[in-house]
């Protein structure tokens, strides 16, 4: 499991090709970019884990407002810090062109769930909007506008009117959102 040398085994490559939505070229490119992120000592470990700070330097993630959440969600370590190569492939696979809407919406839900409680409540939505518009004071919405926006979002997506958006409601509203598939996409 994992790739120690800078060269990916052929049967491992075809296995990854079947288990993810990525093509052979994309997996090889991902492997190349991943080994660039590792420090020299880590390269010789059997299953190296790239640290979060190194991953956040990738140009595809650097400008993304949800970059820390993305790394947290895809990380399989105890402390949710750092990605192995397979975690990295999961990330690219979920964000690839050929991933299904179900996979994308599943991961999008987990990324937007800032407090990891399984639902999107008002605090999660507020943090989400602030991430999108920017963190400084002049780029935020006023409290009234924020309240109006959150009540609009809940009105559109909360079907059972419990004040939170759960996974199935989220997937339902995403299935009707025409921009989601094209915007939830990262290509190396």
């Amino acid at each position, binding site marked *: 499991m994992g790739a120690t040398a800078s060269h990916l085994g052929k049967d491992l490559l075809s296995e990854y090709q079947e288990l993810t939505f990525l093509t052979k070229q994309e997996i090889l490119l991902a492997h190349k970019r991943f080994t660039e992120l590792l420090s020299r000592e880590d390269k010789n470990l059997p299953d190296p884990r790239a640290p979060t700070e190194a991953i956040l330097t990738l140009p595809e993630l650097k400008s993304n407002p949800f970059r820390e959440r993305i790394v947290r969600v895809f990380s399989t370590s105890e402390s949710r810090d750092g990605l192995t190569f397979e975690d990295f492939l999961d990330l690219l696979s979920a964000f690839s062109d050929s991933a299904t809407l179900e996979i994308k919406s599943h991961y999008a839900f987990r990324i937007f769930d800032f407090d990891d409680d399984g639902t999107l409540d008002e605090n999660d939505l507020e943090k989400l909007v602030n991430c999108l518009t920017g963190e400084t004071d002049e780029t935020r919405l006023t409290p009234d506008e924020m309240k109006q926006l959150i009540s609009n979002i809940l009105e559109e997506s909360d079907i*059972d009117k419990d004040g939170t958006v759960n996974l199935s409601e989220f997937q339902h509203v995403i299935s009707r959102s*025409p921009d989601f598939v*094209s915007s939830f996409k990262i290509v190396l």
Partner: protein
Amino acid sequence: MGACVCVCACREQRLEQDRELSSWRQRRRSLHRSLKRLRADLQERLSSLVLWRGDIHLIEGMFGTGILSYFSFLRFLVLLNLVIFLLMFSFVMLPIIIAPHAGGNVTFNQADGQNVCSVYPTSARRGLVIFHEHITDLLSGGGFLEQTYLFYGYYKVHAISFPGFTYNLPLAYLLVTVAYLCLSLVWIVQRSATGFKRNLIQDEDRFQSFCNKIFAGWDCCITNEDAARLKRSSLLYELKTDLEEERIKQKIADRSRKERCRIYTIRLILNVFVIAVLAACFYSIYRATIFSQKAQMEKMVQICYLPSIVITLANFITPLLFSVIINFEDYSPAFEIRFTLMRCVFMRLTSIGVLLFSLWSQITQCKEGPCLCGYNHQLYSCWETRVGQEMYKLTVFDFIIIAAVTIFVEFPRKLMVNYCGCGLMRWWGQQEFAIPQNVLEIVYGQTICWIGTFYCPLLPAICTIKYFFIFYIKKVSLVNNCRPATRPFRASSSNFFFLVVLLIGLALASLPVMVGVGQINCSQACGPFVNYTVSWEVLPRTVSLLPNKALRDLLFALASEAVAVSLFVITCVGMFYVIALAGAHKRVINQLREQLVMSGSARNLKVASSIPEVALSETPHPDCSCPAGCRPAGLTPPPGCECIHEGVNVSRYCEALWVI
């Protein structure tokens, strides 16, 4: 891929599945997998051949998917024009070209000198030709270009008899015209099918839903820091505008009756004013065309291009005028944008129609009463070539204008804004890439191409080259001069919008072609239809010459009114059925939604009153077979977790027990 979401889970699932299968099934499964792998490799190789993939990826990273959709639309038009050209070339030009080499014998249309209609004075220049006259000919399509493959008049072929069969060129010419219009229609509809379905579903909500903006708002493909910052500010602007619009809508709904009357009167006056402006523009195009046709004898380039200049001026002034007028009409912001856009679309595409109408009024108007040959043979011995020349001039002029505006307006603007910090420059600001206006430009060019291909068969090739260069011009201008628009254009709705405008262009283009083919007498001096009164006549005549009587009768019956009326009635009935079905589905959806709300609220109530048999306690009932994985209240238990109490499935009350 099933329900697994990560590599480890998938691997385990697959190993488990493999263990259960017999050896034969395993072999079949591995064969299936290697076939899938082969297909994926092939697709990857094909996708690397896609035109401009690298450029479009770069634009996507810098500006997001809204502007990207403009460039992929441009790429689609390049392909469409190339296919139309190949169609025209292989069925009309290729037989003529290979006839001498393949042993074919070309029979030309007889030009009997007795008939005054079939006199075609040559327009080639004689004697010493000055160089600038060549340039004039190139720009106006006259002179040495007139009697070439470029225009309709050159195809004076009746039939080509190859060893074995006779190739009926007039029939091929007509059928290719019909074919390229149908092909364009089918291709556009197929491309817009996905967008159309989504827009239909989306339209029952607001114009742009908030969920779409928040959950799908961030383009993850943006890699540029500046672009990310701009995207953030444009998202903020968009959210503020939409919230503002909602407040305005509320205000509109609260309007009093007196205010409403006042608004409606203002709107009526302004709409009349807009119609008057449009009528004035159309009249000026009409007069300019007539003037330039009458002055054509002098062969001055400026006069030749007068209709194109007038059209371009009108299309430059009217959008500015419309955007000023719409401010007084007091619509909601979203509707304002749509309405202005529709007016601009109407203006642009109808101006071509007016040009053609004025041309035709000249062609079919003779000095002394009704025309001898059905058209004015003294001035227009080959009128189709003249129409083709006008379309050619429009195309060339359009390209010159796009290139000139980019070079002489946008680049200096950028230099002045960057290096001259005076107030005027700062107010004018940097160039914004206005997607709607750019799209209208290229749809206008494509409409001209569709109309003109019948009269100028090489026009699709010219348009392909033109759009090819426009891609690079626009890309360079975008990367160097422009900043993204403050009001962002959503990718999804923009794709739909582009294709709807293109469809309107196609509909408006097929009208002149149909009138030209079916109504106006074709010229007797040139072209493939010399032996027919109207171009369409070649089809019934060919059908009547068919050897098989049954087929002949069938084809004539298909063209009769009875079939047309019954088709129309069947289409109407089908449409009503589908609409009724959609309405029924909407009602079912609403009912299910209410049911969900009721069951959700039932879940939040204390359950005691509804299921007295289930004991309420801190720990689940011993009969409840929920494994330890049943999570706390608010979540549905994972699949396979069922609580059965006295034969009743109380799974959904599992968490209720935990709550209490």
